[in-house]
């Protein structure tokens, strides 16, 4: 028994055990999933240490793998295998660290929840699936665990199944990602037809011999699957709704790990995309579009989790932009740092929600004074996401911007810079609204307990430190990486600072133009011209911008959603029409049958030739 097998197997066993146990017993045995997670974490660290650091050790120990034959199709054995390489080793760490943090955090956050045992069971199953996906040495196992993750996501979004919104959101998420999966599945079939194997090294090794047409088709089909899972435009619509699930689950699945699986898929199969060329351009364009659109939509949300959800979509767009330059480390490094700071932000948001019992930022305020630890850690996450030196987000985002510039994608570069500006703006908006000023409707906050805080502290440390690994990371993945240059870093820092500055100007010191506008009568507005300037600014700068963002939001809700939903409606319509044919009179049926016999005989005869 290989150590690689044990890593996903242990959480999986916990799931099966919990599945069989009655609810009351499960609730008492929560130490099991957490213990399993800890064992997986330790084993992952051991696995990591066998391949780290650098190329020579990889050549020596790397690509350990275990293979099993699960069936024979048409005489060809169907193997599944686990394989450890640099990419897999890194992802192992991300999944187990964030997974561990979330499980500890959930102990307090989900306390008293009746179905907490089931929650932990699904979390374990999810972790097992994600670890299998990361270690998968072939696309078949990859796809299987990909689907299991989709199932877990569905179960966790709909965890509060008495809530109608959550139920709808879970179905929407499942169906939307399934749309992407159809592409993925067809891509795999095409791959099998082309190569006759699912083994990742075999497939990737032969990618350059397929010819550009085939490579483009397969790459785009795979990317379509990635778009569904990683919520890229126009398949992003499920992720904001997915926030109806428990917050820690959102942190793990819909921020740090599962949604990054699409990025991981593209990173894994990058040689196919490179063989195509066109596919890389598509990845770039989709990534850039998503990054900008989602960032602008994030700036008009009032629900703190929705802001973070749009932010996740936008950051995933960034990762795709990084991969679109054909450089694995650019995309993957951002995935790596993002996993830490975004899960940190989600856990922080959870801590605030837990304390204030609302998700509406308009009702929050002044949290900074009462929740010291949450505030400090959340601020770290905010600065990391905004891309401020020396927090990790700065380094990873800069790597992407740097590659975009160097490869000559100037338009995409400016789109990315604009998205970075918006990112800093909406995070500042969120921060000032929640932490500064005085408490509003939701009242005073109180600090959460240590089970909630300690994972956040660990993640905050990682969010700070991860940036220091820039060079090691690049070397480990086998690509040239440098520290951000002064010009590039300077440009992005200025952009980020001005985003934060705009956020401060509009929302700092407890100002809230949106709330003021709602309250202020015309007289009040004129009298208190202290606000006058702000209102002008809001009206002409932010207002116009807000309207635009709302338009984008509307377009997203009505048109994109409409098209995706429309397919389903059309299917149902077709069914209803068919039902009409079924009038129920047997004479009509018999006539139809006789007519059908005649037509079929005629077709057969004509096809044979008289």
């Amino acid at each position: 028994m290989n150590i690689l097998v044990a890593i996903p197997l242990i959480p999986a066993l916990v799931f099966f055990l919990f599945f069989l146990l009655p609810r009351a017993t499960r609730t008492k045995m929560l130490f099991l999933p957490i213990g399993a997670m800890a064992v997986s974490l330790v084993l992952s660290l051991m696995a990591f240490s066998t391949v780290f650091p650098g190329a020579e050790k990889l050549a020596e120990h790397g690509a350990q793998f275990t293979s099993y034959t699960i069936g024979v199709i048409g005489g060809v054995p169907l193997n599944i295998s686990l394989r450890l390489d640099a990419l897999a080793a890194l992802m192992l760490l991300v999944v187990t660290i964030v997974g561990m943090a979330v499980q500890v955090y959930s102990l307090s956050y989900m306390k008293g929840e009746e179905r907490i045992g089931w929650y932990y069971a699904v979390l374990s199953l999810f972790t097992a699936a994600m670890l299998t996906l990361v270690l998968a040495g072939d696309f078949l196992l990859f796809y299987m665990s990909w689907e299991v993750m989709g199932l877990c996501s569905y179960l966790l979004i709909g965890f509060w199944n008495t809530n109608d919104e959550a139920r709808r959101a879970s179905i929407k998420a499942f169906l939307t990602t399934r749309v992407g999966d159809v592409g993925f599945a067809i891509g795999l079939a095409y791959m099998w037809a082309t190569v006759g194997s699912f083994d990742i090294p075999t497939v990737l090794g032969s990618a350059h011999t397929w010819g550009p047409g085939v490579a483009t088709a397969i790459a785009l089909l795979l990317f379509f699957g990635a778009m569904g899972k990683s919520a890229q435009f126009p398949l992003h619509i499920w992720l904001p709704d997915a926030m109806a699930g428990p917050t820690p689950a959102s942190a793990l699945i819909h921020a740090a790990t599962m949604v990054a699986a699409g990025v991981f898929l593209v990173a894994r199969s990058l040689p196919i995309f490179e063989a195509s060329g066109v596919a890389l351009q598509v990845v770039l364009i989709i990534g850039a579009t998503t990054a900008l659109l989602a960032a602008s939509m994030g700036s008009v949300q009032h629900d703190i989790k929705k802001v973070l959800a749009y932010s996740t979509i936008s950051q995933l767009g960034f990762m795709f932009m990084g991969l679109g330059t054909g450089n694995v480390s650019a995309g993957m490094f951002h995935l790596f740092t993002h996993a830490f700071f975004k899960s940190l932000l989600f856990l922080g948001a959870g801590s605030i929600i837990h304390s204030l019992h609302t998700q509406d930022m308009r009702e929050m305020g002044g949290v900074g004074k009462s929740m010291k630890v949450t505030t400090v850690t959340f601020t770290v996450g905010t600065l990391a996401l905004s891309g401020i030196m020396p927090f990790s987000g700065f380094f990873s985002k800069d790597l992407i911007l740097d590659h975009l510039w160097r490869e000559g994608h100037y338009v995409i570069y400016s789109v990315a810079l604009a998205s970075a500006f918006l990112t800093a703006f909406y995070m500042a908006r969120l921060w000032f609204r929640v932490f500064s000023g005085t408490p509003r409707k939701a009242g005073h906050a109180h600090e959460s307990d240590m089970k909630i805080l300690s994972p956040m502290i660990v993640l905050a440390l990682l969010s700070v430190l991860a940036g220091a690994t820039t060079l090691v990371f690049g070397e480990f993945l086998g690509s040239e990486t440098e520290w951000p240059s002064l010009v590039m870093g300077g440009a992005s820092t200025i952009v980020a600072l001005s985003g934060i500055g705009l956020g401060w100007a509009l929302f700092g010191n407890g100002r809230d133009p949106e709330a003021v506008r709602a309250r202020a009568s015309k007289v009040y507005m004129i009298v208190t011209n202290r606000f006058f300037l702000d209102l002008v600014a809001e009206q002409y700068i932010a207002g116009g911008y807000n309207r635009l963002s709302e338009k984008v939001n509307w377009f997203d809700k009505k048109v994109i959603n409409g098209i995706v939903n429309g397919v389903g409606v059309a299917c149902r319509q077709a069914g209803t029409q068919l039902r009409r044919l079924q009038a129920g009179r047997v004479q009509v049926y018999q006539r139809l049958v006789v007519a059908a016999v005649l037509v079929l005989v005629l077709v057969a005869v004509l096809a044979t030739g008289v």
Partner: protein
Amino acid sequence: MQQYAVLIPELIVLVAALVALFADLLGGDRVAAMVGAAAAAMAAVVVWLVPVPEALFGSMLTFTHGTTTLMLRSGIAGLTSLFLLWVAARGWAGVRAREAVALTLFSTVGSMLLISASDLVTLFLCLELATMPAYVLMGYSAEDKRSLEGALKYFLMSVLTSLVMAYGLSFVFGMNQHTSYSPLQVAGPAWLGVAVSVLVLVGFLSKMTAAPFHYWVPDANEGAPSASVAFVAAISKIAPVYAMVRLLAEVLPTSDGLSRVVMICAVVSIPLGIFAALVQTDVRRMVAYSGISMAGYMMLGVAAATPAGYASAVFLVAVYAVSVLGLMLVVAQEGGTFADIAGLVKRRPVAAWSAVVYLFSIIGFPPMVGFYGKLGVLSAAYRAGYFIPVLIAVLMSVVAGGYAFAVIRAMFTPGEGAPEETGIPAPVDATEYPQAPALAGTVIVVLAGLSLGLGLIAEPLISLLQASLS
């Protein structure tokens, strides 16, 4: 004499059918069902024990296909046994079960003989023996007008298509000058052979509920007792499809024209069945439409006209029968409408989760066995060059997820006014003996286990079938 030993399994079932007719003297429905279940189980085992000759009755029955015929005969008997075991536990919703048990067993004898039929006469007789009891079963709740109406429609449509088929068979006899299976000697232009083949196939397609011969199915399913639907929609479909592919492989000439006709039916059946299934709110009607789409998938394999295609078609129908049988048995004890099964997971978690397995197998979701069935026919059709139909079929199987999820959602959401407090549903059937939920539950779990586990040995089973059909 020893050669007749091969028919002992059929004889056991036949004797049990006659015994069941006298169930009144023996003690009622449960005894009848138990006798039937025991006999069918015994038959399923005995099939493997008796010596197998090449042919019987001057080649009217042949057993040359070795393990395949044994496997199918044993499988049909085994499924019947499981079904009757369930009947013994639950009764036949709302009606007396004893005659129904006898009819089931008669139909099973017909199905088992049909597997080895190798003469036009035995083919036709066995096919009718297998379906005649089915008409009665579908109209079994005689006080219910809908049941009678559905059964009458079924009868009229089936008889009509059987006539067309008999007409076709008469041509086969005319051309070959004898009724044994041998390649058709087409006297005259080539199209004549093709036209004859189409006429013969019509009978089978109607039994398989393929479009455009499907009109009766939803109405009949909705009116009939659910237990009858379970038998007719599942077990009674296995033998005809094997008889059909045998006829195609041994007698009827393969031609592009015939393949095209079958392919047209397939491409009509698949979307029609799946789209119509999406809007149903009654599981019995949904099963009717999903059966139509399944017939479409089966025909993809038939149209490929290769041993692999034929084998996968038979395999698909057989494994589909397992899952549909299970699903309909769940429906038979809970009621067919979505309101009836609402909150099922709370009341009967085992039944609900088993139903999830069945549904996943029906829509062909890996690793359930239905997936391997569909994979087989799709790859056979693809190899035969039918790219567009395969594409349509693949896309439609994604849509098929919709109706499965509709049922699952119904089962997993608490219904309004569902009797959650008592935990016991309102009884839908009125049997005269106390029910045995543990026994019924066992049958349902076994069927779910088969829906999952057969997938593991799908490949060897298909290649075994393939070897016998090439």
